[in-house]
């Protein structure tokens, strides 16, 4: 009776294949972690260099993205530690236009996304990382704790705080936007219209 061969373990992918499949993911993750658009290219290069150096340590039985996220998170954290990067805000994104979406819907979606990104920018990076991994990438909390090297309870705590803070930041951002829109709709003094003018005062 022959012995059936045991299934071979999954192969670790080659760096070229990892790059081709996950470059967009790394790019978007760095963006969500608050890296400026103009810096994402350099930092994604840095991420893949580090990935290449550690690729033989990747456990191919586990999903790749949380593992990649760990690299992106550490690279982004190092980047933000530099004082000159610490207080910079996400730049206006340049993106392809989906022709299937009506312009007004697109505008609304863009505004909403800009608002969410601005609110996200207010979050501490550690909390933001857990929120992005869990709520965007849908990675379970225990796996997040494993990838980020933190206790499970800490990961839960960061997620809870991140959601609270995001909600509060969104509220502030919406309030600010409303105030800006109201102010811009109000005629400027000297234009000859509206209550801000002094026409006929003399």
């Amino acid at each position, binding site marked *: 009776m022959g012995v059936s061969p045991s299934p071979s373990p999954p*192969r670790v*992918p*080659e*760096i*070229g*294949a990892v*790059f*081709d499949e996950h*470059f*967009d*993911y790394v*790019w*978007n993750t760095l*963006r*969500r972690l608050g890296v400026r658009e103009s810096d*994402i*290219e350099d930092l*994604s*290069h840095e991420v*893949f*260099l*580090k990935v*290449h*150096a*550690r690729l033989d340590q990747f456990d191919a039985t586990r999903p790749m993205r949380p593992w990649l996220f760990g690299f992106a998170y550490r690279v982004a954290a190092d980047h933000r530690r530099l004082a000159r990067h610490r207080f910079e805000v996400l730049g206006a*994104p*340049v*993106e*392809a236009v989906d022709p299937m979406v009506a312009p007004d819907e697109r505008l609304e*979606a863009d505004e*909403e*996304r800009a*608002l*969410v*990104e601005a609110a*996200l920018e207010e979050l501490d990076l550690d909390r933001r990382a857990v929120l*992005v991994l869990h*709520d*965007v990438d849908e990675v379970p909390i225990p796996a997040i704790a494993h990838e980020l090297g933190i206790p499970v309870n800490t990961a*839960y705590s960061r*997620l*809870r705080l991140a*959601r*609270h803070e*995001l*909600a509060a930041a*969104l509220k502030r951002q919406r309030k600010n936007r409303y105030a800006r829109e109201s102010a811009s709709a109000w005629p400027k003094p000297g234009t000859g219209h509206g209550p801000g003018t002094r026409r006929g005062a003399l």
Partner: protein
Amino acid sequence: MSDSMPPLDRRVLASLRSDRPAPSDARSRVRGRLAAVIPAMALSGASAGAGSSGFWRRFGGWGPHGMAVATFIAGGVTGATLLATLSHAPPPRIVYVDRPAPQAVVSEASTFSGPPLELAGPTRIPVAVPAAPQPTAAVATALSAPASPAATPPHASRFAEERRLLDDARAELLQGEPALAIARLDAHRARFADGMLAEERDAMEVEALVRAGRVDEARAEAAAFKERSPRSLFLQTVEATIASAP
């Protein structure tokens, strides 16, 4: 736990999850930069995607020798590309110098050579240029007098590229990333097997291997280095590195 966990608004979640494709030109640039230091990227880039995976898998099936052959081929491809690029470059500008070239080389060499693998602190090597590889006068001229990119002689480009790779490797060693440094040094070897900075590369590799905990390989490299370059300025450093290895 879930009682105190506030849910995220669906619109907010949708905004958070909206991915954007990375700009294709940025993707190409990053791939190109990676290919400069990772030979596997250079080859997989030629036929990106599943086809390249199959190609590398075949080499992987040959075991360690397969990867060595693949690395050799990658180096060849990179070298051929470089040669093709240089062959289309305009002819080098001829500059006459009125003093020997080594002077310009000394400052360059003394910045990076010497017991250079004492990574912290200034270089302590005296000016001992005669034993070091002697770049040509053209290189020295190019180093001392920056010219427009179009007029840069090929040798200077080559030297600068070698220098850049070793500088990057050194920076990675300083940052505690010996694996990255080794990868970069391997890339240097693939492109510049007998390069002007080959001795410095090999000496640095011994240091990187020690720092990566691959002491046996470091010893083998050091022995090979001694046999290959018994009068090298770097030999003393290499021996000191091995002597201090755990």
